[in-house]
């Protein structure tokens, strides 16, 4: 079908609002966007290819480097898949420590996503506030795991290092401080009239189109779909986890879902700290052969590892499905279409929190 287009505006690969290289081609008529196309391929490293045939000790570190922002969950899903294949049990203390590390990672990722959104709509004050409390979360993550970004905290049969009692107290004191600040910043976002002008009713993704596009994570939960892989996880079940859902379907709802999830994460960490009982943090076991498909909830949505191992614990086949690819597609086909001006394209794109590094791997 032939379509009349005024001008074809390319955004990226190097763009002030995008953290990573992706090219977004918008077909416009006047100021209105009538079609969009995303062009990937700047970040393809072929991680799955170099993972094949390597022992899990090496693949563990490669899995972590699929995505630097959500490195803990990549580590966790890969290790739990290996554990499920081999029938290795995790001590209860280690399972709770995994939840703490994972939720701290989710917090810093959501804060970064909300920072990017506020930066894109030019609300630099709130963006800097969020980046400032993100540093406190990074400190806690570093104190727990020993590294800021790629921490390799989770190993088969447990976790790498224990949390000391004084660190526990520091963590809960720091969580109180973070929650106080976070509450204030969420209120600022909720009630800011200028923020509402740039966010409410922009980048609409209705529930039907969200189901059609198979969106995952906070993007789906902002459109009223209660999908969260954490509800299937045994440790989260014990902590009575319930997903956060909003029905706004716009940029504002997506950012507010992340703010609500930050509070939920703080609650989960507090519960885990309270439930933490003394005991060992590493069990034993032998990695065996088998095939498994296993999913977990990354900060951006469902993350699936499909693994085949051989009897020596080497990874024979591996396939990774990351959340962002569905969200990027939904962004191009539904959210961006019909926005009032080109200025809203970047904010709608950033509100879905696309992660190009894990999309292309």
């Amino acid at each position, binding site marked *: 079908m032939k379509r009349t287009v005024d001008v074809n505006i390319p955004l990226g*690969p*190097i*763009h*002030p609002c*995008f*953290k*990573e*290289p992706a090219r977004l081609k918008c077909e416009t008529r006047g100021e209105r966007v009538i079609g969009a196309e995303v062009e990937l*391929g*700047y*970040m*393809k*490293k*072929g*991680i799955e*290819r*170099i993972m*094949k045939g390597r022992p899990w000790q090496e693949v563990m*570190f*490669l899995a972590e*480097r*699929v*995505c*630097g*922002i959500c*490195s803990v969950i990549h580590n966790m899903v890969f290790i739990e898949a290996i554990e499920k294949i081999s029938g290795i049990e995790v001590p209860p203390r280690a399972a709770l420590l995994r939840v703490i590390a994972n939720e701290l990672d989710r917090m810093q990722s959501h804060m*970064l996503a909300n*920072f990017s959104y506020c930066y894109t709509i030019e609300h630099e004050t709130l963006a*800097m506030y969020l*980046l*400032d409390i*993100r*540093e406190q979360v*990074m400190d806690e993550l570093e104190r727990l795991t020993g590294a*800021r*970004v*790629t921490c390799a905290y989770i190993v088969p049969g447990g976790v790498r290092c224990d949390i000391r009692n004084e660190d526990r107290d520091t963590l809960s004191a720091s969580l109180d401080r973070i929650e106080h600040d976070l509450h204030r910043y969420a209120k600022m976002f909720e009630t800011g009239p200028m923020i509402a002008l740039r966010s409410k009713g922009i980048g609409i993704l209705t529930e039907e189109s969200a189901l059609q596009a198979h969106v995952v994570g906070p993007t789906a939960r902002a459109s009223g779909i209660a999908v969260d892989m954490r509800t299937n996880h045994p440790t989260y079940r014990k902590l009575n986890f319930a997903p956060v859902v909003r029905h706004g379907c716009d940029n504002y709802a997506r950012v507010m879902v992340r703010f609500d999830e930050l509070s939920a994460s703080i609650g989960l960490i507090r519960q885990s700290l309270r439930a933490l009982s003394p005991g060992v943090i590493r069990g034993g076991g032998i990695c065996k052969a088998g095939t498994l498909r296993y999913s977990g909830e990354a900060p951006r949505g469902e993350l699936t590892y499909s693994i085949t191992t051989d009897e020596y614990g080497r990874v024979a086949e591996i396939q990774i499905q990351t959340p962002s690819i569905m969200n990027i597609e939904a962004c191009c086909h539904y959210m961006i279409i019909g926005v009032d001006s080109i200025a809203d394209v970047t904010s709608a794109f950033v509100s879905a929190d696309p*992660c190009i*590094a*894990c999309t292309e791997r």
Partner: protein
Amino acid sequence: MTLLQRIKDLVRSRSIHVSYVDVGSCNGCDIEILACLAPRYDIEQYGIYVHNNPREADVLLVVGAFTLGWEEKLKMVWDKIPEPKAAIAIGNCPISGGVFDRRGSYVDPPVSKHIPIAAEVPGCPPRPTEILSAILSIRDTVFAGWEVKQR
């Protein structure tokens, strides 16, 4: 050194525009560069301003193991930056390929094969303070007396 040169040096040392380009990293170094913007590290107190426009930039931060998609494009970005300019490689990947430099991967490290690199910051990922001190160390060696060095 003339007065004009001294003024130029002073102004340049307090106004460094940074652009960053991701040529196939895992995002870990990207977020550490973003963390430099945080009030804790406060990159702007040194007169460093991070934005992603190569045409206004003085320093290019290169992140990542150089994927094949960037084959000619990184050179184009580098040519767009006005003189005097410097490129800094952030992280292990642009220096050696890091964990990605294995048989079967689609990367072509090091980045210094493709554009001239002035400084390297190893680490997986380096801390924000290390990135900051690398940018500040470039300041005097590359930008001071640039016109004199050209003669």
